[in-house]
């Protein structure tokens, strides 16, 4: 039997992009070959285009209303589910990381960290609001409170130097806070990103909440920054020229720009509720308080 199995032709995986809960090929029909340091060809990967990004923004915008309106508890459950799914497919990720030059020990620890990070943010889903909200003691007879609300559609360029950890570290705070997003995977290490999209797709995460593209940063970054229906852009590289380009283009619609070039994702400082808050708006609501006969109602 062993012999026949040796003869069996392995089924190769097609690495496609993830938009609106579907796995289309890039509309451009272009691809590039992902390689590793030994110059082995690992896979043909979609070379995502401006129009793929456009489609992803439409998908993210459509998903925003529903996702932001989900109960925070439910978002937490879904993030937890993503972690469970990732745990179940750990071997595949370790395998892919090793193909992309990681050692077994490092790959294992990276996947474990990703799972733990998802669980960390799962827990924050229904807690950060309590920490960062306030009831404001205004002098007039009004009840006044401030709460964080998601900024909207976030376009993020994932850290380019690692395959999975950076991606997960960027995606988790976006969706934990109720935003939807478009994430550009590491161009040099794209395999895990596509496989992670499959994890997302099997985790009760509604289609369109996270959209993952593969392609070249230099080509796509202007669109991540100038699209008028994107509310925030996240960039993680210490590349001053690109940072400037993003900030300039962001001014077209007063986008929020978050630069995470100094973050060490593999340490404890790579996770915190402040990453969630970076992509939140503070909303303040006023309402009059009746005061008949008795003492003044105050907060």
């Amino acid at each position: 039997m062993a012999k026949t199995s040796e003869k069996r032709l392995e089924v190769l995986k097609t690495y496609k992009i993830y938009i609106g809960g579907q796995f289309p090929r890039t509309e451009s029909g272009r691809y590039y070959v992902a390689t590793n340091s030994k110059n082995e060809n690992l896979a043909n990967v979609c070379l995502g285009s401006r129009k793929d990004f456009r489609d992803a923004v439409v998908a993210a915008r459509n998903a925003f209303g529903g996702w932001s309106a989900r109960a925070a508890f439910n978002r937490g459950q879904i993030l937890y589910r993503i972690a469970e799914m990732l745990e179940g497919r750990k071997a595949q990720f370790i395998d892919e990381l090793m193909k992309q030059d990681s050692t077994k020990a490092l790959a294992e620890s990276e996947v474990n960290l990703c799972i733990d990070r998802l669980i960390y943010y799962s827990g924050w889903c229904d807690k950060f609001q309590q920490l960062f909200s306030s009831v404001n003691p205004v002098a007039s007879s009004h009840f006044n409170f401030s709460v964080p609300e998601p900024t909207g559609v976030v376009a993020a360029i994932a850290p380019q130097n690692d395959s999975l950890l950076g991606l997960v570290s960027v995606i988790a705070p976006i969706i934990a806070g109720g935003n939807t997003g478009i994430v550009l995977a590491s161009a040099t290490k794209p395999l895990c990103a596509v496989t992670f999209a499959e994890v997302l797709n099997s985790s009760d995460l509604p289609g369109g909440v996270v959209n993952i593209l593969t392609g070249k940063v230099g080509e796509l970054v202007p669109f991540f920054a100038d699209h008028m229906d994107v509310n925030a852009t996240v960039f993680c590289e210490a590349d001053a020229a690109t940072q400037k380009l993003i900030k300039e283009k962001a001014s077209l619609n007063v986008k929020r720009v978050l630069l995470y070039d100094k973050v060490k994702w593999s340490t404890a400082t790579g996770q915190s509720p402040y990453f969630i808050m970076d992509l939140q708006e503070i909303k303040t609501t006023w309402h009059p308080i009746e005061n008949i006969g008795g003492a003044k109602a105050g907060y």
Partner: protein
Amino acid sequence: MIATKMIPDFSAPVHVDQVGIEERASRFTKRSIKNETKLNGLMLALNMIDLTTLEGKDTNGKVKQLCYKAQHLHDAYPGLPTVAAICVYPSMVKTAKAALGNSGIKVASVATAFPSGQAPRDVKIRDTKYAVQNGADEVDMVISRGKFLEGEYNFVFDEIAAIKEACGDARLKVILETGELVTYDKVRKASDIAMYAGADFIKTSTGKISPAATMPVTLVMLEAIRDFYYKTGKKIAMKPAGGISKSKLALHYLVMLNETLGEGWMNNEWFRFGASSLANDILMQLMKQKTGVYQSANYFSID
């Protein structure tokens, strides 16, 4: 009468916002009333007063004195208007009518088991008819607050309509006793019931319950009058009563009246102050305007 089909469903909720009403009412107090506007306002306020005595110890003598005061507010200041009316209990109507003669000052009588209104309807009707037969030009009735608070709006409506009928040609003022209704929503509802049932005036208070008239509660009633006017074309008069004793406050009420119902209401056919001590405060202010020196109560008669 208002056509039956126009009478609204009084059990439906009304929408008055307490904080908003109070904010708006306080805005009127920010108006700065100076010089000739102040003089005209004070004269007008004087002319809108229902000079009132409603005490268990009222006597013919007391009422006669009050009626004299009504006609001679302060003879040292020539050209003053008279007050609008004298307001007394039914037993004093005859005395007041005689004392006022043809001065043009009206006699208003409280009725309907004032101030509580806790009497059977036929007693209230007899009370009203007695006042009218004795010469009352105006009748100040009280609504049955207990029934109102029980939600018996039809009872309250029918009672007002019955008293209106008993009034004949006398104008009917309907006292809501807002201090017992407590919320502005209820004041608004009671105002609507009174107007649709035939009130000529709506009036805040008996003066026996605190709080009596306030600017916000009066504003709620003025707004009710405005909406009623736009719905039916019929003007209803307003009388805040109790608690208005200073001329500055009276001027604020007039600003509120002027900016809520407009100049069509700026006379004593359509607005009254139910007050007893307001007159002297206005007189002191008028004398201050005239002489330029601050006044002492010793120079103004008390009746």
